[in-house]
């Protein structure tokens, strides 16, 4: 029997030191290249779901960067989204209800990953309808928006709809995505991104990022200050009650951004805005039980119910809804 493996051929010439080094580098290089290619295989994860949604239901916009495609009907990962002719999630606005609420926000408020009826604006709408039959809540939130877009959307939508109340679902990454400075996925090694995220060296965690956005004097905090000031002024000018619902980032609990919420609440009140901080209602919860998917920290239906309950109670306490 001839042994063919595990040995050099009998007439193999001894390799030089440089050649051996070259072979080692080659071996490591091939391994890294292979892993890089595997890492680039598209996975059916959060990114893919957002992209699928965006391709079907989002259109670019010069003023707002993007908006929901009017009239779109989309189903992504088993969740149906319908968009009205105004670009809001849900049915067409009714003619002229006695008490109309317009809700502004991002993907959390839009209800990414949950059915239309389970979103916190829809649940607040049902609670409101139980008190005031002729009422309506319009969910004008759009995924990927930040505070600057909320103000722009206020100017666009509120004069036409003449609501009695404007609710803003503020999420801790809202200072980003404004002033045209949207974060893009940087080109580079997908393998490096994967390993770096895994080993903790992949840049900032979501919490650190959101904390940095609210640091005093930072561009993010200045964006919030400007937006709250403008929003406060608009609400005074139009005689519309405006409330900010501070929605928590569900990366971990106990909530690490409580101080940031306190500062946001103080800033909002200083500009005449009513404030509801939703974070304290989650104090004793297991954070993963509130996620919409294992790879997606957006709030699920249970979390939306908690948000809606906290927000509606606060609206009642602050006498912002009809008795």
């Amino acid at each position, binding site marked *: 029997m001839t042994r063919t493996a595990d040995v*050099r051929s009998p007439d193999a010439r001894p390799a030089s030191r440089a050649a051996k080094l070259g072979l*080692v580098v080659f071996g*490591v290089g*091939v391994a890294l290249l292979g892993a890089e290619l595997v890492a680039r295989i598209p996975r059916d994860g959060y990114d893919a779901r957002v992209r699928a949604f965006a*391709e079907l239901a989002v259109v670019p916009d010069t003023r707002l960067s993007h908006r929901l495609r009017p009239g779109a009907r989309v189903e992504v990962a088993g969740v149906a989204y319908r968009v009205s002719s105004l670009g809001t999630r849900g049915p067409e606005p009714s003619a002229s209800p006695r008490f109309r609420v317009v809700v502004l926000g991002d993907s959390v408020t839009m209800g990414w990953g949950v059915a239309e009826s389970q979103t916190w604006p829809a649940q607040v709408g049902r609670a409101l309808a139980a008190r005031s039959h002729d009422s309506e809540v319009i969910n004008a939130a759009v995924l*990927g928006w930040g505070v600057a877009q909320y103000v722009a959307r206020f100017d666009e939508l509120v004069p036409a709809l003449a609501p009695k109340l404007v609710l803003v679902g503020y999420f801790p990454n809202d200072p980003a995505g404004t002033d045209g400075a949207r974060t893009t996925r940087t080109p580079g090694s997908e393998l490096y991104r994967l390993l770096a995220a895994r080993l903790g060296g992949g840049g900032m*965690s*979501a919490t650190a990022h959101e904390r940095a956005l609210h640091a005093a004097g930072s561009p993010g905090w200045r964006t919030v200050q400007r937006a709250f000031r403008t929003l406060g002024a608009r609400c005074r000018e139009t005689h519309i009650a405006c409330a900010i619902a501070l929605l928590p980032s569900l990366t*971990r609990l106990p909530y690490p951004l409580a101080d940031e919420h306190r500062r946001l609440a103080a800033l909002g009140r200083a500009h005449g805005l009513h404030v509801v901080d939703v974070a304290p209602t989650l104090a004793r919860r297991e954070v993963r039980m509130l996620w919409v998917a294992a790879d997606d920290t957006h709030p699920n239906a249970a979390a939306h119910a908690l948000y809606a309950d906290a927000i509606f109670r606060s609206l009642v306490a602050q006498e912002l809804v009809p008795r």
Partner: protein
Amino acid sequence: MSAAWTLLREHWRWWLVPLLLTLLIGAALAALAPDPEPTMPLHYDLPTR
């Protein structure tokens, strides 16, 4: 047959062992490291058409 191919074939251990070791170490690091804190990249470019 080129000299490079001959070198690869005759001294296969010098590149195959580093290749396998690299894959092994990478897989071990990925498996043993704790789950990273999940991120919510909401503000990245949304593809539209």
